[in-house]
């Protein structure tokens, strides 16, 4: 399992890698500068009778070089906002659309700002006492910072889309967009994120409550407000299942249904993931994508990554079959490896074209075996997304199969 902690204010990012396995060599940088947890007094507790019941796609240095995806000068400035907004970073991501166009494409999804309420004071249960509605094969979004692991069930986030939380001392937001099937994490500093009610390319548009800048989740660039044109700082979120996550992280805690809001948890308004049905399985999109491509079914899950080199997508089914998939982005070699324990993939910028081969549960690189999350290459943040949504935002994406 990897968590990325940017520690330098300027002059390049330095990242810390956590290795889930104990018998794999550790690579990466080992210092960090935790952010201050925020305090949130807006506790809304359910009471009553009965119980219902990725950083800048900059990547790990792997010991050398500049973070992939950072701006051309290599800077990855982590800028804390003095006006209550989230920290932003200088990044150079693949830009397919000008900001004006993104604003033009912003559509009212129905609810107004905070009409879909974020969870601002999340409550957690230990792994051996999970919510009764959570089945082992249900999808959860896993996050691990500084030894603290947390799971956020999809069935809860479908009603809230954003959890403002503190994990391992980091003030973060774990975000999920049901319509694009994307779970992403962002550092939030002293700010909180909310759901704006707007959608672009069917994708959640967030806003920060400090500056009211609007941030499309998948991009994630400010499109209006004080931070227009700036990028949020991301961290990796793992889309897996509850059984897989608690097997990998027995000490994990899991988000409960005590969210402070009355919602029909256990019932998904769009369909089901276990087994997959409804919107998550059909060929319909609720809103027209910015660009379309029929190489894959619209809801096919791809692992997408993007940086200054460009954008890439790996079909998850293909990754499961082959374990290692290589390709190029802007002429630079990349490799994506499969983690069978968590049913997820990790993307690496492999500028030197170092050979990567499966070796048991790990991968053989330069004669040593590494766990899939800790290859000695430049780690990129990748996340699951529905194909139509990924292509809609990144029509120049290169597909690795």
């Amino acid at each position, binding site marked *: 399992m990897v968590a990325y902690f940017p520690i330098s204010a300027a002059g390049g990012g330095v990242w810390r890698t956590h290795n889930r396995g104990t018998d794999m060599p550790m690579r990466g940088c080992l210092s960090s500068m935790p952010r201050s947890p925020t305090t949130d007094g807006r*506790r*809304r*507790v*359910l*009471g*009553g*009778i*009965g*119980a*219902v*019941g990725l950083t800048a796609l900059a990547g790990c240095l792997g010991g050398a070089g500049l973070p992939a995806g950072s701006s051309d000068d290599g800077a990855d400035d982590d800028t804390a906002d003095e006006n209550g907004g989230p920290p932003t970073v200088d990044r150079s991501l693949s830009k397919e659309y000008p900001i004006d166009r993104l604003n033009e494409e912003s*559509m*009212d*999804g*129905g*609810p*107004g700002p905070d*009409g*879909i309420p974020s969870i601002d004071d999340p409550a957690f249960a230990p792994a051996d006492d999970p919510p009764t*509605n959570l089945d082992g094969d249900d999808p959860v979004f896993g996050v691990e910072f500084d030894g603290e692991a947390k799971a956020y069930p999809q069935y809860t986030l479908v009603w809230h889309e954003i959890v403002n939380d503190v994990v391992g001392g980091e003030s973060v937001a774990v975000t999920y967009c049901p319509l694009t099937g994307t779970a992403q994490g962002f550092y939030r500093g002293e700010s909180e994120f909310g759901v704006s009610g707007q959608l672009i390319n069917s994708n959640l548009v967030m806003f920060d409550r400090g500056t009211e800048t609007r941030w499309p989740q998948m991009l994630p660039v400010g499109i209006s407000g004080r931070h227009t044109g700036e990028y949020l700082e991301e961290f990796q979120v793992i889309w897996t299942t509850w059984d897989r996550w608690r097997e990998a992280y027995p000490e994990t805690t899991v988000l409960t249904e005590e969210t*402070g*809001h*009355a*919602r*029909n948890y*256990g*019932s998904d*308004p*769009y369909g089901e993931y276990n087994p997959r049905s409804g*919107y998550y399985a059909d060929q*319909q*999109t*609720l*809103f*027209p994508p910015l660009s379309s491509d029929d190489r894959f079914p619209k809801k096919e899950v791809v692992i997408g990554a993007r940086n200054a080199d460009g954008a890439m997508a790996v079909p998850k089914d293909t990754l499961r079959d082959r374990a290692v998939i290589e390709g190029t982005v802007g002429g630079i070699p990349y490799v994506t490896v499969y983690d069978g324990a968590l049913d997820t993939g990790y993307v690496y910028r492999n500028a030197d074209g170092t050979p990567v081969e499966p070796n048991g549960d790990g991968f053989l690189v330069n004669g040593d075996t590494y766990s899939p999350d800790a290859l000695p290459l430049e780690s990129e943040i990748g996340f699951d997304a529905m194909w139509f949504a990924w292509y809609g935002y990144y029509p120049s994406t290169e597909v690795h199969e």
Partner: protein
Amino acid sequence: MDTRLAGMLRPRSRIAETGAAMRLVIRRYDSVTVTGVVTVGYLLTFLWAVGDLSIRADMPAGVLIVDEPLGRVLDRTGPATFEAIAIVDTGVVRLLFSPGNLLLGGFVAGLVGINLAMSYLAIVQPSACGIGTGSGLLASLPALLAGTVCCGPVVLLVLGIQASGLLLTMFAWLLPLGIGLLLASLMYVAGRIDLSEPTQQ
């Protein structure tokens, strides 16, 4: 002048007729039954459509109330939907108790119920020849319009229609349009009822 046309051109008269027709509706057992059944049926459908009512046999009976419920009654979750402040589980059915949705749904359901009851009376006690079941269906369209708005784009999902900016803008107007049409329908149908002494109880 045709009496019906004259009635339409005299709003006060038509309002009085509508009031009288509503009184007639509540005086007759059969029309009250129609009103009640339609109102309750529409309200339940409305609550199911907005997601406040569902079958949840997997949940034990109990009640959950959110913190500071009164302060959240008017929080909106959509253009015409409101925050639930409690969860009521019966062991079979789950109700998300949202006073705003309940009041709004109840109002529209009542309008639909009275409309259909008046349509029923227009059939069994017409004031003029030529009144058929078509008038009874008049309330269906506005009822659907008023109900559809509550679910917003999710309705499009069910119907497999891709949303456009224009369509989403239209959604915001469907509720007031539906209520307006229900009121107009009420006044129209009221003019087709024989307001003399009831012929049956």
